[in-house]
């Protein structure tokens, strides 16, 4: 987090705290005004830039809209604009966006949030530039190097400026690259079915998750841990969710993915070792890291063992057992992160955990009752269950998240 952002955060917390102090009679109204006037400058900037979260969201959305607009403009490929004209538009808009963003956020520092969004727009325009050049030289449409270059190109910027938006962009670009590159490597004759991709993404998700934890362990990287953890959790649980269905056909892994496996496991190992030696670790970090290690190693080994022989060549009892085990592991995982979220007061863990809890319940409901109940009853009961489940979960979620704030105030 930049020093300016830290000041903003501090000021916002101070304002909340001062109200409590005033109520509790610790300070007088006069003292409150005096304290707040010390931070008048920041409050003026805050007024200009509007309330923090809202302005960030609005400006990021604005940047995304402009980015999409520019990409569509390029995609239309009007022949009226010559090649160099299009390149000039991309280069100049990227540089202006970066320059203006940096000026507003760090030099003049009066519109830090708008500035951050403009820098994000610059990163989007960099990607648009890559695809424009690919288009000009008729480089294939399915072009894995595009997202790779985009992701790697903006990654240093995310670290230098500690911007979560740019880091999210880089992580998503690299996830897209992984999909494109791996599907161009695999030979479909040998490994039929989607399993190798699911297990590849499962390992990637766990690796990203561990990378996020490692970032949390270091004071200087803490502010940009969220994109890794959020992407890691979503990718891990989405892949795990697919494995709760009857998909155990084809090969589990693929020999064509071995270079990816090595890279992913190396990233995981590095992140986990660094995390173990980091300054501050969260509650139950050891259990979390050990579970992640256990899962990634299991998936890695299974992918290597079943890289040639298809799973359905084994007995049907084998695939049934595999399905049952993956269902149990998934359910434990969901409960695990909800629990971790509760003891760490992390709303991200709880929200993602609850989301996959609901998805799992819905899927299993379909699995077990579709054949048993008459169709009409099936839908009515399903609907009632979902509605009441929704009410229950919403209340539970609010209670848990509210309890964090209460504990915070009472501490």
């Amino acid at each position, binding site marked *: 987090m930049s020093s300016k952002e830290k000041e903003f955060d501090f000021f916002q917390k101070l304002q909340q705290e001062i109200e409590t102090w005033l109520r509790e009679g610790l300070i007088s109204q006069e003292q409150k005004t005096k304290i707040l006037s010390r931070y008048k400058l920041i409050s003026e900037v805050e007024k200009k830039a509007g309330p923090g979260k809202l302005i960030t969201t609005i400006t990021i959305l604005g940047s995304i809209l402009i980015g999409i607009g520019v990409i569509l403009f390029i995609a239309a490929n009007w022949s009226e604009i010559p090649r160099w004209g299009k390149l000039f538009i991309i280069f100049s808009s990227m540089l202006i966006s970066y320059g203006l963003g940096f000026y507003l956020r*760090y030099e003049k520092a009066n519109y830090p949030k708008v500035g951050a969004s403009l820098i994000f727009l610059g990163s989007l325009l960099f990607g648009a530039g*890559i695809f424009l050049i690919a288009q000009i030289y008729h480089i294939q449409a399915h072009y894995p190097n595009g997202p790779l270059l985009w992701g790697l*190109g*903006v990654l240093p910027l995310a670290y230098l400026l500690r911007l979560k938006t740019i880091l999210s962009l880089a992580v998503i670009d690299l996830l897209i690259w992984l999909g494109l590159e791996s599907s161009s490597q695999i*030979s479909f004759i040998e490994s039929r079915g989607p399993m190798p991709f699911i297990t590849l993404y499962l390992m990637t998700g766990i690796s990203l998750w561990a990378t996020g934890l490692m970032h949390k362990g270091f004071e200087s990287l803490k502010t940009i841990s969220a994109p890794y953890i959020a992407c890691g959790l979503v990718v891990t649980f989405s892949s795990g969710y697919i494995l709760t269905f009857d998909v155990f056909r084809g090969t589990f892994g693929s020999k064509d993915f071995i270079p990816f496996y090595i890279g992913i496991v190396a990233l995981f190992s590095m992140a986990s070792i660094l995390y173990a030696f980091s300054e501050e670790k969260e509650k139950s970090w050891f259990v979390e890291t050990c579970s992640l290690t256990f899962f990634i190693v299991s998936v890695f080994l299974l992918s290597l063992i079943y890289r040639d022989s298809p799973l359905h060549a084994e007995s049907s009892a084998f695939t049934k057992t595999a399905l049952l085990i993956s269902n149990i592991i998934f359910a434990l995982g969901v409960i695990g992160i909800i629990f971790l979220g509760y003891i760490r007061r992390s709303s991200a863990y709880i929200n993602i955990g609850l989301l996959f809890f609901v998805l799992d319940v819905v899927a299993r409901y379909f699995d077990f009752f579709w054949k048993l109940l008459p169709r009409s009853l099936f839908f009515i009961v399903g609907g009632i269950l979902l509605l009441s489940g929704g009410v229950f979960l919403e209340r539970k979620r609010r209670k848990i998240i509210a309890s964090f704030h209460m504990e915070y105030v009472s501490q």
Partner: protein
Amino acid sequence: MRIQFIAIVLIQALLLAGMIAYKQYWLARGERILLRTVPVDPRDIFRGDYVQLRYEITNLDLDKLNANESFNTGEKIYIILEKDSDGTYKAVSVSKIPLTDKKFIQGKVTYAMPKPAQWELVFTDTASGIKYKKVIGYEPGETKGDFFEACLDKTGNITAYGSGHYDCGKDKTINITVDEVKNITGLGAINVEYGIESYFVEEGKGKVIETARNARKLKVEVALEADGKGIITGLFMDGVLIK
């Protein structure tokens, strides 16, 4: 921080400029070849409007090209090209390494379609000395020198054979020895991607080119980089360059 920021932005700009410079260099310097296209299914809609191209050299029958090795999916491949009478280039052989003395284009195998296994057995009639051939789809257990009783039909094909006695019915019964057992499985066909399969056009202008492509009237001019990678430089429809 300002200097680091400027440095990263400059690197990004240089990356883009580098991509342009590299392609421009090979457009200006690279050798140009003309390739014939073949029809394809309609385009998809991911990035603007573009025409999907497939070439005569996209699908290669390794046996027809007298290749002596097979290829896996994802493997790099170099196609040796030779000029045809109409000025276009066609594939004459394939290689896993670039052959500098010949004209070649680099591609990546996207799909390898192996041929089903085939084994050829050569038998000799012990009485007459006449040789008979039989092709089977699995690895045979017989080895050279084995002795069998066999049935020979009117067209001269061996219909059945075995170590015991056979009732050949209308067919003739003969005694044979195994002369030769060899694997004659072909290498099969491969699908190759050259990175020149998309031609971007202004929105809505792809239809004309697609029609020409499907009528096999479209030829593509490609500049070759030193390592054999291709860049599309122009499209010729009925011999006329489309801009």
